[in-house]
């Protein structure tokens, strides 16, 4: 499978604006200035990237623990119940990044909440609703510099 083709401008936008998108009144005009193109061109490019799903959104990534509580969590779900359990888990607003992985520990997700009390309550509610144990793996230390997604060699 090959990915969607990126224009040279799109490539530049992805390389340059994952970290410090301008915080000023007309950010797209500021971005456009860097490449000698128009504000409209940059806005159209971002719209195109979003429509094709390359860019999920222009938004913020928060430092873990500063804007709430979060943990990675996993469940070992019998294969025949996986779809149903995944749907129930995903129905919680506090759950994101809900994935099936190829391992006996097969359902992985992230729980985020405004505080640890709410986080614990959500985990308990998931266990109660599914009758399965939830293992939690809170982050203790990060070792990468999160510079966004580097576009590796194609």
């Amino acid at each position, binding site marked *: 499978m090959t990915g969607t083709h990126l224009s040279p401008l799109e490539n530049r936008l992805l390389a340059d604006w994952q970290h410090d998108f301008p915080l000023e009144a007309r950010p797209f005009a500021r971005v456009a200035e860097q490449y000698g193109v128009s504000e409209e061109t940059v806005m159209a490019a971002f719209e195109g990237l979003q429509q094709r799903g390359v860019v999920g959104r222009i938004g913020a990534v928060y430092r873990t623990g500063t804007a709430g509580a979060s943990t990675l969590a996993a469940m070992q779900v019998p294969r025949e119940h996986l779809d149903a359990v995944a749907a129930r888990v995903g129905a919680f607003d506090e759950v*994101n990044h809900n994935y099936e992985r190829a391992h006996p520990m097969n359902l992985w997700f992230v729980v985020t909440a405004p505080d640890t009390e709410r986080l614990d309550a959500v985990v308990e509610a998931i266990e109660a609703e599914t009758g399965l144990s939830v293992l939690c793996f809170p982050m203790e230390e990060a070792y990468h510099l999160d510079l966004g997604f580097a576009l590796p060699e194609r």
Partner: protein
Amino acid sequence: MELTETDARLVAALRDGLPVTARPYAALGERLGLSEATVLARLTALREAGVVRRFGAIVRHRALGYTANAMCVFDVPDAGAADLGRRAARHPGVTLCYRRRRAAGWPYNLYCMIHGRDHGRVLELYEALADDLGVAEGARAILFSRRCFKQTAGCYGRAAAAGSGAQRPDGARGATVMAAR
């Protein structure tokens, strides 16, 4: 840094992303009853305080063809974990590297995400990483992703937003199911 009530509402509103329009911060402010200047001042403060670790385009690697994605887990001594983690983070293909708390029945404490264009390439990168870290086969595992049931922004700040009556419309969220490969 404590989030103010205004910050919490701003964080909640940003879950849907910045609107692509000439004055996006003014548009965001309009939804929240805040001025453009206030929105910019608060976001700048959050960014400078490091609460916002990065602000910009959130790229979906899958759409770019990086469809093979594996979580690689290692059981390493806690004392040496930081050195190994920093070493792993420099490896090609490793996009995230964390030390996490172990749990009963799950001995692994070092987590690396590896993204690649195909399964075989990711496996190669994993074997090279394991070799370099010196972790024997019994003390590690690779978990390829199969299906993504849901991928959304975290919901920090949501409770505060709901408390202030600024309940967000729910159209953008829910159980998004995408084929992972």
